[in-house]
């Protein structure tokens, strides 16, 4: 189904429920071309669910999700697979295929989805590995890589088909602050260089403000704040203020076991 839509991604009144648990409750969001949108929120608030909904891996309970002119929720499997080629995803734990070395991991989408010759594929792999500073690690297996190196390989794999949209699920989680900054800078450089739009899901404050050109806060299944980083910092929304300050006093913990325990 097509619409006249200039946004790269649009979520319209999306509801998502896993059995009894309501994760998204009327989420609406637009992502404009070349945005680096950071979605913030508590753990388990449904941030990663949004990424999986955009990829069509999960189906929403109701509502619609658009990637450019395509309504993801209504696409047939074959078309959905084609659309996914324009979207790259970097997973929280990298999700590299453990049975393949670095080169084969990056080459996989090219081998499976394009008609490029092995020489061309090698060239592209080398180029992408150089971009992420991993040229010498081509023959290593994922188990031989550190967390930061895996993230970089995963980033190279996500960029190998020249996507229009890249999704990042907690890109700096589990990394030391220096490597986390390296990954953040890589994300900024690569997305700027190739003019791609990106959505970054994180709850690491430093990383979020470094990367984002736009920030959104997901709370109780809804986007409660959506603004440029400076404006977001000055937000008067009590949930946003509490989240940014990391305070235990405020609406986020109200009525929860944690709040009762602290009283």
């Amino acid at each position, binding site marked *: 189904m097509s619409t006249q839509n200039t946004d790269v991604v649009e979520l319209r009144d999306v509801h998502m429920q896993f059995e009894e648990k309501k994760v998204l409750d009327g989420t609406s969001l637009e992502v404009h071309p070349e945005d680096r949108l950071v979605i913030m929120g508590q753990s388990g608030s449904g941030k990663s669910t949004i990424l*999986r909904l955009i*990829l069509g*891996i999960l189906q929403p309970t109701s509502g619609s999700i658009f990637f450019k002119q395509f309504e993801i929720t209504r696409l047939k499997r*074959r078309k959905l*697979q*084609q*659309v*996914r*080629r324009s*979207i790259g*995803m970097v*997973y929280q*734990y990298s*999700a*590299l*295929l*453990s049975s393949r070395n670095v080169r084969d991991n990056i080459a*996989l*989408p090219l*081998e*499976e*989805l394009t008609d490029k010759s092995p020489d061309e594929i090698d060239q592209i792999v080398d180029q992408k590995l150089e971009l992420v500073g991993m040229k010498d690690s081509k023959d290593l297996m994922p188990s031989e890589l550190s967390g930061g190196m895996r993230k970089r390989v995963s980033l190279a794999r996500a960029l190998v*088909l020249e996507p229009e949209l890249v999704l990042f699920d907690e890109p700096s989680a589990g990394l030391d602050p220096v490597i986390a900054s390296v990954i953040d800078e890589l994300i900024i450089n690569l997305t700027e260089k190739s003019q791609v739009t990106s959505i970054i899901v994180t709850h690491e404050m430093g990383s979020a403000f470094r990367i984002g050109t736009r920030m959104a806060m997901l709370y109780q299944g809804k986007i409660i704040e959506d603004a440029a980083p400076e404006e977001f910092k000055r937000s008067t929304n009590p949930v946003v203020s509490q989240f940014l300050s990391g305070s235990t006093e405020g609406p986020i913990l109200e009525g929860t076991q944690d709040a009762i325990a602290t009283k």
Partner: protein
Amino acid sequence: MPEGNEAVIVAPGVQLARNFFREVGSLFWFVAHTLNETTERLQSGRLPFRAASFFRHTQRAGVDSVPLVSLVSFFLGLTMALLTGYQLQRFGTERLIPGLVSIAFTRELGPLITGIMLAARIGAAFTAELGTMQVSEEVEAIEAMGIGPLRFLVAPRMLALFFLMPCLSTISNIAAIFATSLVSRAYFSIAFVYFLDLVRDALLIRDIITGVLKSFLFALLIGAIACYRGLSVRGGAAGVGIATTSSVVTAVTTVIGFDTLYNIVYIVFYPT
């Protein structure tokens, strides 16, 4: 009996039946989607998976299973020849041993023993491997790239089992018949040449065809169950363990169940 008690007794049975049919339905859906993804890919003029991946699985499922299958079948052949031989000797009919063992193996035991061994050896490996890929988000990553995980991960495994199972079953038959020939020679004074004549006289082409058809059927069942269980894993390492156990138990039970069903159908339609 009061109405409430009946409900207590009936409800778990209904639930069990519902779960059973749901699982059977999901398995059919899984096989149908794998076929669909594979044929779609073929229609677009491309191989559904890489030849290297297929050969890696044939090596694991087939070639590497040869020692186990031949050894177990050899010992089973020995035991069967000895046990039946001593009984038949009492009636002076020990020359029936070659025919008895060769028919039993080509028609029944060869495919069955191979099926059970492959369910345990390869089915478990497939489930654990795919299950681990599932929990570490590798399967989702493949799907997110726009690659069909069923044609890419499941099809080469199922196809490798499908083609290799009849070969392994034949090896099992040969090992068992060879063991029988040794026992026949050593204990019942049946010379090798005479042994071969007796086997040739007893074996019918349709016994061999039956065995081969069974092997293909068992391969499909084991492959489908193992891969389905692997891709349905939820809940981390514990989930992989549970799925692997369940895969072996389900595959072995299904293979034995289908073997019985096949024999009943065969005897009803081709009684001899």
